[in-house]
């Protein structure tokens, strides 16, 4: 009996290890494949990698902030619209004041305000948070579109002078921002009661409530952190392209979901949530997309690359779901 138990424990340990290491292994493998493909094609590797980093950094930051919401077992579909709205308000503020601090203030206030509004509305009306985020997505997109089209006119968008953000459009700045935000989230998630209680709430909300943990309080904290991620993402979006159109950040909302799953975190949240999932998964997803775009001819490639991405996505979900089927509680 003891031997059978040991065998089961060993099997479970291996399974856990596989699931934990898989996202990193996938990222490394994809990175190596990307380098080989780029070199084989004769493209400029350093330049390509810089582009891919730029594509992934906003997603990684916003998704890292959003991890706190997903850990609660909740869902925020309005993050893309929030990013658009925060960037819009940032541009409007800069154009009115010519002040970078004012622009940053407007972006942070808008992003954090929108995020908090979603969670407070959910608390007040006792409805699931994701329902309020659906409403917020529609409202924020519509308001942003109104501001952009009224002020953008024939240009189709609004912008700030590129010189205003040019000093920040470099790798050193973006890496620093990513590291600082990730370190903050890492600390909160793994080394404070905020992360522990959020995992508890996501895993078993009834039990967590019975032990005296206030769901609303931790939901608000999660949205506050996610709002901060959105604000940084909106700023970096403007740093990369100093203009905002109605399509800006349009794909972020769905990409966050994909990134978190690619990173090996269960979408249901709970104790198996991982703070590094967003960074690992975000960059894996971006790298995979770029490999497919390079390899598959653009004439027929769009549909095929989407199908391959979808198959890859399902495979990742299947492998990570092995973790959920364990006979042991997560630890």
């Amino acid at each position: 009996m003891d031997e059978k138990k040991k065998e089961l424990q060993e099997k479970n340990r291996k399974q856990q290890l596989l699931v934990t290491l898989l996202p990193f292994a996938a990222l490394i493998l994809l990175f190596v494949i990307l380098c080989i493909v780029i070199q084989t094609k004769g493209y400029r590797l350093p330049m390509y990698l810089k582009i891919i980093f730029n594509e992934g950094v906003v997603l990684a930051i916003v998704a890292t902030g959003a991890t706190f919401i997903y850990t609660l077992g909740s869902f925020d579909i309005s993050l893309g619209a929030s990013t658009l709205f925060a960037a819009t308000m940032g541009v409007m503020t800069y154009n009115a004041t010519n002040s970078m601090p004012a622009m940053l203030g407007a972006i942070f206030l808008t992003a954090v305000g929108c995020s908090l509004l979603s969670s407070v509305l959910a608390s007040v009306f006792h409805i699931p948070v994701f329902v309020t985020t659906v409403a917020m997505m529609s409202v924020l997109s519509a308001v942003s579109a109104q501001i952009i089209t009224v002020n953008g006119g024939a240009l189709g968008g609004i912008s700030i002078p590129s010189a205003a953000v040019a000093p920040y459009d470099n790798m050193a700045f973006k890496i620093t921002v990513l590291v600082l935000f990730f370190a903050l989230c890492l600390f909160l998630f793994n080394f404070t009661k905020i992360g522990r209680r959020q995992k508890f709430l996501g895993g078993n909300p009834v039990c967590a409530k019975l032990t005296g943990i206030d769901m609303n309080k931790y939901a608000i904290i999660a949205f506050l952190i996610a709002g901060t991620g959105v604000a940084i993402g909106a700023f970096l979006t403007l740093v990369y392209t100093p203009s905002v159109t109605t399509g800006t950040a349009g794909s972020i909302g769905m990409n966050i979901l994909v990134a978190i799953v690619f990173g090996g975190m269960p979408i249901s949240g709970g104790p198996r949530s991982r703070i590094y999932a967003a960074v690992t998964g975000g960059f894996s997803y971006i790298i995979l997309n770029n490999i497919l775009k390079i390899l598959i001819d653009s004439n027929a490639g769009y549909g095929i690359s989407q199908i391959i991405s979808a198959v890859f996505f399902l495979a990742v979900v299947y492998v990570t779901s092995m973790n959920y089927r364990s006979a042991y509680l997560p630890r």
Partner: protein
Amino acid sequence: MKKFLKMMMSLSLAFALAACGSSTPATSGDSGSTAAQPAAVSGKTVKIGVLVADVSGEEALGFRSYFENYIANNYNAEFTYTEQLTDAAGEKAAIEKFAAQGYDAIISMSDSDRATQLQTSIDNGLYYAVASGMLADEQFEQYKSNEYFVGQVGPSMDAEYEAGYEMGKYFADKGVKKVALYGAFIPNPMHVYRAAGVLAGIGATYGGASEKDAVVGQIFGDQGIDIKKVETGDVELVGYFQGFGDTTFDELFACIGAQPEAFLSVGMATTFFTQNLNDAGIEFSDIDSFTEANGEAMKNGKLVYLAGKYSSSIGPVFAAIMNAVNGTPVRDADGNAISLSQDYLVATDAASFEKYATADKGDTPIFSKDVLDTMIGAVSYDDFATAVAANRG
């Protein structure tokens, strides 16, 4: 400790990307081809990246076929299209990727942020030209003297307004008393200008204004046309809708129910509504292109007015790009980039439609190799402009 290691692994991989990326930043003139090594001299294929916002429309497909099937077969040029671009970041990333792949030039048919497109092309030493729409005046002024900005050839916003105006006027002159209007994808600027032109053409004012800029400004503000703000003269506007979604056909049927004598569209009606309008027996018009489907609608359906572009109308942009890559750029007397507006061709019956469609068929486009050869090489700005104006089908 294990957790810490995992965090470090995830971050270090991100840094690996970043560090590799930052080791040799792109610099001006770093692309695969520069003016110092003209393609004609080196004999190498000219690689052109095409930015597109529309990948499935009839007009977009016509343009693509012209580049990929006609131009690529007749010149030492290769075209690579992007996926559908929806924002400025996507456009910038696409240009940077073309630069990383050693492309020579960019042709833009995407307009989320033309200034950033241009600046990115300049930063990466890629020649840049606009083939659909035009830069805003202030943007053109800012970049017109840059060597990498080749120029722009296509309908200006004034030309879009005129196309709408002429369409509205056509029905007003015809004695039509009741019309419905489809605003396509307002607030897309092109559609806004066309719709403003239609209102002027049927003799209507909007919010009390009749002057172009005032009407356009109000439509942008309303993000559409508020039918209550339309004051009509002899021609009554009995219905209006825009966009395409779940309620579009309900709105179309409501318009049809108002019994207009004509249905005017500023774009895409022939793609979306031809069958319904034919069935309802309502004459309709559109601003689109000379495609087979539109020819059928004009010949056997109720399409009675089409202001269209023809597929090879983007030929001059290719010629301008070739000149720039080959080291013989076409510049005006002050050394500025090309800026030429193209008007729409108008067909009002099957015969006139056939005339333009036949003139621009796949193997015998209006901007054929014979015509383009007169525009490629040491050509003056005036000669180039004359060739653009002379070849209109």
